[in-house]
């Protein structure tokens, strides 16, 4: 049953003269008071937006929505993205008029409820990370990385040290080196060893008085906790550098290990992952950062401060050593509120249970998958693991991408493939704590079936989706990035 309401574009559905939104009539006295604008400033006609009735719009987008896989509808084991269940209560609470309708430039005395929540969130994030200084301002994980690299720049500049280099692990998210570069650093890569952990010897050989920061992810992108983490952070500190922890994998260690305790000086959270904000098709997220006390003065402004004398929460931008502002207004408050609600739903012991179940689920799935695909790095993991389809590719010509595409037909979102780069034909699986044993069993069974299937069936997959294997190369060679009448 072909539904043209979703295969057509809004612009193709447009019907001249059709209207959805009608405004109230302008009061004649208002109109009378208005003077015409100079002709060279005004347009002859408004932009050529599509013309639709409300029913067109509703049907179009409702049908479009059914073409997405989502956490509400499917298991989404996309490694490193932590696609856990998004509690519905958080949406209702974040939409309360006293939160959703607050203007960002209102005076502090009119938003004490809002500031109290955010101030408390600062404390909670500090407690979970073991790092006392908090900025809620960064708008995404990568934005937090950038802010932290700027903090490091400011810190070393104040100390009068010239340290132009940032080290990043070769298994790190690509945002790490990109963020360091944007903050004005040169980057150098530290290798992984055969176990997929930081190659300590390689790190030591690169540590010197030129290195400002070592950025690492722990647990790393293979889902492994670095067993030498303390030795690593000690070595960086001994060389006068700072350690930055990419908090993408915090979901694995809530109440189990704290970055501040294992030697990180700075970190960011991805609250949309760890504390379950809906990812919304790729955003919004947020990227609050936590830092050690001696870095706190450099954090972006404003931060929230409690003033005991006035018994009031205040936005504090009187911070002379601050790197300044990195985003307009306060930050992605809506996402931060959801993180706050999430943490309040669990409390300290509950959060540890979250991570324990995430680790249990991943190890359970690993115990099943290792009989289906080669898992190069051990038979234990934290909250995610990376398998390799390289043997399957050699023997049957089935790549990680083929596997990913075919698994879609079984009603599962695909794992992350080809990341991290340190594993050949990588298949990165993260089940999260919000999937049942039955779901994990069904996923493993589907994966097994796929590996038993014939190459042709798999190369043509997926078979059940509206489109199959879009031509990326053609899209990049001859980019079409907007609809025009003749295309």
């Amino acid at each position, binding site marked *: 049953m072909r539904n043209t309401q979703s295969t057509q574009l809004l612009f193709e559905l447009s019907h001249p003269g059709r209207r959805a*939104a009608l405004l109230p009539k302008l009061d004649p006295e208002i109109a009378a008071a208005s003077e015409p604008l100079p002709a060279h400033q005004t*347009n002859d006609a*408004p932009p050529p937006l599509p013309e639709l009735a409300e029913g067109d719009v509703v049907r179009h987008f409702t049908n479009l929505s059914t073409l997405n896989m989502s956490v509400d509808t499917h298991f989404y084991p996309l490694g490193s993205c932590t696609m856990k269940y998004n509690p519905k209560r958080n949406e209702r*609470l974040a939409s309360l008029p006293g939160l959703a309708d607050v203007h*960002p430039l209102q005076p502090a005395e009119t938003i004490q409820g809002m500031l*109290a929540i955010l101030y408390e969130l600062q404390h909670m994030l500090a407690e979970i990370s073991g790092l006392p200084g908090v900025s809620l301002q960064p708008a995404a994980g990568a934005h937090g990385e950038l802010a932290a690299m700027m903090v490091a720049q400011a810190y070393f500049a104040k100390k009068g040290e010239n340290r132009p280099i940032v080290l990043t692990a070769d298994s790190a998210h690509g945002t790490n080196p990109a963020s360091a570069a944007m903050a004005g650093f040169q980057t150098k890569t530290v290798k992984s060893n055969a176990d997929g952990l930081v190659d300590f010897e390689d790190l030591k050989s690169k540590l010197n008085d030129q290195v400002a920061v070592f950025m690492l992810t722990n647990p790393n992108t293979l889902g492994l906790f670095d067993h030498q983490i303390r030795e690593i952070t000690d070595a960086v500190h001994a060389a006068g550098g700072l350690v930055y922890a990419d908090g993408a994998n915090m979901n694995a260690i809530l109440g189990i290990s704290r970055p501040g305790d294992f030697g990180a000086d700075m970190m960011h959270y991805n609250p949309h992952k760890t504390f379950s904000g809906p990812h919304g098709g790729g955003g919004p997220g947020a990227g609050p950062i936590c830092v050690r006390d001696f870095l706190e003065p450099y954090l972006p402004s404003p931060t929230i401060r409690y003033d005991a004398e006035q018994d009031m929460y205040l936005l504090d931008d009187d911070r002379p050593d601050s790197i300044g502002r*990195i985003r307009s*207004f306060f930050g992605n408050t809506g996402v931060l509120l959801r993180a706050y609600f999430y943490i309040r739903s669990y409390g300290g012991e509950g959060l540890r249970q979250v991570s324990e179940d995430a680790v249990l689920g991943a190890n*359970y799935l690993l115990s099943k998958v290792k009989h289906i695909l080669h898992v190069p790095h051990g038979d234990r993991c934290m909250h995610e693991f990376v398998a390799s389809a390289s043997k399957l590719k050699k023997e049957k010509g089935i790549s990680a991408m083929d596997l990913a595409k075919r698994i879609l037909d079984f009603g599962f979102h695909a794992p992350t493939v080809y990341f991290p780069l340190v594993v050949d034909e990588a298949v990165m699986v993260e089940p999260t704590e919000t999937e049942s044993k039955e779901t994990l069993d069904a996923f493993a069974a589907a994966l097994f079936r796929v590996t038993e299937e014939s190459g042709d069936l798999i190369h043509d997959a997926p078979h059940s989706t509206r489109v199959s294997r879009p031509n990326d190369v053609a899209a990049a060679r001859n980019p079409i990035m907007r*609809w025009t009448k003749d295309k």
Partner: protein
Amino acid sequence: MYLFHTDEDRQAMLKSIGAESVDELIHSQVPENARFEGTLQLPPALSEMEMQREVERAAAQNASAASHVCFMGGGAYDHFVPATVDAIASRGEFFTSYTPYQAEVSQGNLQAMFEYETLVTQLTGLDVSNASLYDGGSAAVEAVMMALSVVKGRNKVVTSAAVHPEYRQILETYLRGLQCELVVAPYDASGTSSGIADYIDDKTACVLIQHPNFFGRLEEVQQIADATHAAGALLVQSFDPISVGRLKRPGDMGADIAVAEGQGLGNPLNFGGPYLGIMACRNELVRRLPGRIAGQTVDRRGNRCWVLTLQTREQHIRRERATSNICSNQTLLALRATIYLSLLGPEGLKETAEHCLQKTQYMQKQVASLERFSVPFAGPVFKEFVVKDHDGSVANLIESMRGDGYLAGVPLGQWYPELSDCYLIAVTERRTRDEIDSYCRSLSQLTSEGVIAGA
């Protein structure tokens, strides 16, 4: 609470793994010297009912555009959000999906992104749009960074004091580590950037202006564009997406890159975020455009479809040589903007812009007619204007007006010490004549009764 496993499940799973306990799993990974042995000191867990009660209490302590009549702007606006926007955007299939790495099962998001990008090109009069950035401020800064990378060998950025002060603050932060010079041209007596051409030279990589500017005033964009281009630099224009219902589009006046805060397109105020950073540019700049882009292609069956494209610019491939470190986009807010613009259509956008324009002009006249107030910047305004209180303190005035039920405006002294007796009033299509007239009556009454103390 949101967990699935019963103790029985846990035991069965452990057995299958071949582990005694979850602790054993954890200890096999996390060395003793990196373990946290205590319990996190967090407030106790709350049931849904308890939390609702507590959060409602906190929310009730806030004034808001729901409890007060909002005349605040300065980059965040109380525009009307049609019910359809919430109804569709809250569908779990949109809400709880992720970045469309698997195009086959993300056609809903990808097509909506493609539609969003098309709508942005229609709003800006430029060739290509990305799938959104964090917010209007980040978009402005990313555009400047993009221009710096395109215009080789130049490291000077010229902007205007009439550009959103917070955008300029972000710009300062970003440029500090990069050995770039930031020059801020002052606004003139009419609150516009008419003198900015004097600051543009052959060292200038780009010029960043805002039109309508932070004071609501219209800039002579075409003239600034000509001066910018004559110096071999690029023009970045921050604009109000509602304004192009009536005003000329950035691309039609010579802007090379257009950026905007898209919050007003169907998104709530949310105390500043999440917001929607809009960015569009000319075709020749596309390989430097930061952020995600959805593009059209065909699948193996020949069906038209959509994918993320030009990804070689991005951090997951180019790493430290990427055009930007941004790896997310505000898809959900972009979707809301897409739905909003589909509902408005050209006529709806024009009418919305007309309402903003005319109501602002009406209110400006009413306020200026009050004895104690004046409008320091003469000339046309869109949606916002500066008002000067000749003998009052702005903070007191705003506080007293709040007592009458108004979020009265945004004081300017925090950014412009010379305008400490001034504040900014924004009037969207949501404001009625009755609200505007009542506001002016309150203002008049408060001042005549001496409720607002003189400075």
